């Protein structure tokens, strides 16, 4: 590899920890996020071990509560929300629009340090004994009754929020101001559209969470009385504030993966995605509508029936743009000459599992059925189908698709395909039984359960083992490929997109001369619909 590539242009500590190169910042995030993912996964593994037997005392009730809280807080705030934007967004956004870097490179580096600080604070809370409030921190339990490290954990999330906002800000300004000549909004890749919509959510929703957590800490420390009825406050105020952020947050977690699906699919179907404009518009629609549905997390909280009706209706409506995407992807697949590469398998898995997750969301949007299903394993299954079956699968698809671009190496394809199938099947075995458990009434967040749910739980825990193998296999062969993998050309997949015009890996300065931009083409294989 020649000396001017971003990976080996300079190799001392300072050049990494004081880098202004968006590509290196992406790798800094990747390293940090891998550690957080590992911690969150260990928490899940311990939970699944506990749930192998109905009356296990491997974990005490309090310990179990700490496990699901740790798992939720880390996986949501320190993995899923940042992962695709900060690793793939940071690396690819400038490349995809023909820019030399993001709008504010120093701010980008600062974002990483802020994220690191937030992560350290939260991990400290977990190391010191954890929290048992759940990642949802509902009051007055979290504000007045728990004597675990709620304040410290909440502060960590508070700090990490600033990192999100600054990243979102950076992406929005970059997309507006740094597109190369000829890169019109209509020609923007779908991944860029998804990042733009995600960044809008970052900037609008996160401040609300910031203040909510600050109020929570103030309540805990000073009993100001906003959330605790004993002091005249209202627990529902916390829930409204919390979910006003956290519902759009789930769209942060799913929009970039959907962008990845579009990119990978266009490449391996050898055609433009069907309804390109509609997919771009649906990203914005999801971001917008996503702000109107937060109350569907509160159907049994005691809020008014009228409010519940409105949120229920809005929740049905928000499914429509997601449906538009799924239909357009199916339209892209129809009569296409599909190449089943590893990343293609991952995103096909995304489509199947996301559809299940999304449809079960409709069950939950319905007021009557939600009364029965709320706080059961049905909900746990629903969001894991989207977050893991959807987002994580797409993340792995992204890792495989852009691995040659990031590292200059190609991984072993057959092993990767086997990995993908392992992950999909392991995932299904882990989480599908949970739908059944939930329908049969098993509540979530319990460390023990009645004997009748034993078999389903064993299936789920077994699936978790397979899923774990699915996560670890890529780690092994991807690391192997760094040294022994075939050296990658600029465009090993024959994909469209400006990033594939650059060498693998790119030089530090990205484009030596203005990139050549044309109309988003039909790939030429098969007919364009």
């Amino acid at each position, binding site marked *: 590899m020649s000396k001017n590539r971003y990976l080996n242009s300079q190799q001392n500590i300072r050049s990494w920890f004081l880098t202004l190169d968006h590509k290196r910042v992406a790798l800094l995030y990747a390293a940090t996020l891998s550690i957080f993912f590992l911690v969150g996964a260990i928490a899940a593994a311990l939970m699944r071990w506990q749930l192998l037997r109905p009356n296990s005392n491997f974990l005490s009730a309090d310990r179990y509560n700490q496990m699901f809280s740790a798992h939720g807080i880390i996986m949501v705030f320190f993995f899923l929300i940042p992962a695709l934007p900060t690793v793939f967004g940071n690396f690819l956004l400038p490349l995809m629009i023909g820019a*030399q870097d993001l709008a504010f490179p120093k701010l980008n580096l600062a974002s990483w340090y802020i994220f690191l600080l937030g992560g350290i604070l939260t991990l400290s809370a977990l190391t010191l004994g954890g929290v048992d409030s759940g990642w949802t921190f509902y009051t007055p339990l979290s504000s007045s009754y728990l004597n675990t490290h709620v304040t410290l954990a909440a502060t960590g999330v508070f700090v990490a929020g600033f990192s999100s906002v600054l990243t979102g*800000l950076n992406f929005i*300004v970059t997309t507006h101001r740094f597109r190369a000549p000829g890169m019109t909004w209509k020609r923007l890749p779908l991944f860029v559209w998804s990042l733009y919509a995600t960044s809008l959510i970052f900037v609008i929703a996160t*401040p609300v969470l910031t203040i909510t957590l600050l109020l929570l800490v103030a309540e805990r420390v000073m009993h100001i*009385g906003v959330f605790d009825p004993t002091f005249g406050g209202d627990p529902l105020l916390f829930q409204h504030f919390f979910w006003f952020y956290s519902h759009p947050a789930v769209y942060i977690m799913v929009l970039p993966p959907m962008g990845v699906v579009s990119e990978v699919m266009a490449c391996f179907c050898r055609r433009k995605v069907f309804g390109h404009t509609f997919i771009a518009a649906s990203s914005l629609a999801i971001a917008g509508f996503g702000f109107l549905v937060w109350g569907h997390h509160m159907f049994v909280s005691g809020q008014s029936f009228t409010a519940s009706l409105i949120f229920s209706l809005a929740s049905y409506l928000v499914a429509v743009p997601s449906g538009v995407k799924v239909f357009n992807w199916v339209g892209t697949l129809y009569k296409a000459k599909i190449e089943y590469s590893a990343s293609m398998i991952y995103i096909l898995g995304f489509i199947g599992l996301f559809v299940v997750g999304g449809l079960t969301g409709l069950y939950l949007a319905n007021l009557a059925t939600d009364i029965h299903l709320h706080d059961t394993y049905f909900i746990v299954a629903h969001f894991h189908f989207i977050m893991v079956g959807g987002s994580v699968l797409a993340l792995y698809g992204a890792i495989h698709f852009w691995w040659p671009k990031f590292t200059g190496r190609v991984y072993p394809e057959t092993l990767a395909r086997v990995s993908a199938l392992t992950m999909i099947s392991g995932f299904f075995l882990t989480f599908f039984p949970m739908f059944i458990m939930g329908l049969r009434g098993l509540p979530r967040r319990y460390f023990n359960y009645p004997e009748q749910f034993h078999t389903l739980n064993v299936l789920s825990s077994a699936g978790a083992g397979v899923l774990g193998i699915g996560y670890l296999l890529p780690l092994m062969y991807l690391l192997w490929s760094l040294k022994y993998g075939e050296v990658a050309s600029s465009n090993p997949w024959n994909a469209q997109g400006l990033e594939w015009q650059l060498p693998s890996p790119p030089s530090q300065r990205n484009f030596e001369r203005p990139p050549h931009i044309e109309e988003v083409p039909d790939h030429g294989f098969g007919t364009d619909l």
Partner: protein
Amino acid sequence: MDSEPTFEKSVAPDERNVTNRVGMWIFVGQEILFFGTVFFSLLFISYAHPEMFANARRLSQKIAVANTAVLLTSSFSMALAVSYAAQLKANKLKTCLVWTMLFGTLFLVIKAYEYSVDIKHGAWPFEASLSSGERQFFALYLFATGLHAIHLFVGVVVVAFLLFNFSKKSFSTSKYSLLTNTALYWHFVDIVWLFLLPSFYFHK
């Protein structure tokens, strides 16, 4: 070494100013959501405790109004500073920045004094004997004005940094960008105060 390709229109100084300004507006936008959430809390809590606004009489309207004059003056000197910068009048620019810093700091000093007066009058959320409506009102008052004061303090620090930076007679367009964005922030903090004033102080 600097044979940078200039095909990106945003590398030229004027374009960079616009880029920085767009970023700053987005930042201010999210700050609006910050304070919006706090105001919303006040609104929400007041539904359950409509009598809570009666506690406003224990706050000192006089100090608040005086402080408002101070803050508005600092905003005026900040706006003047931007105007002088555009006219390349370095000394007048620096004088105005000094005034801005002084009045901003004066606001904070008066605020601290006001808090001590509040404590004396029992307008403080940490008394055990407070009824619910009282506790929420003073707690949100402290939370909101404290958050505002922190923002103002950051603003004062940035203005100090600007003064230190503008030690030369001439300044580049990038410094002008920094100045105008700081001014935007300063005016935003001022406007937040103008919303805080009636929300907490002006009730019958």
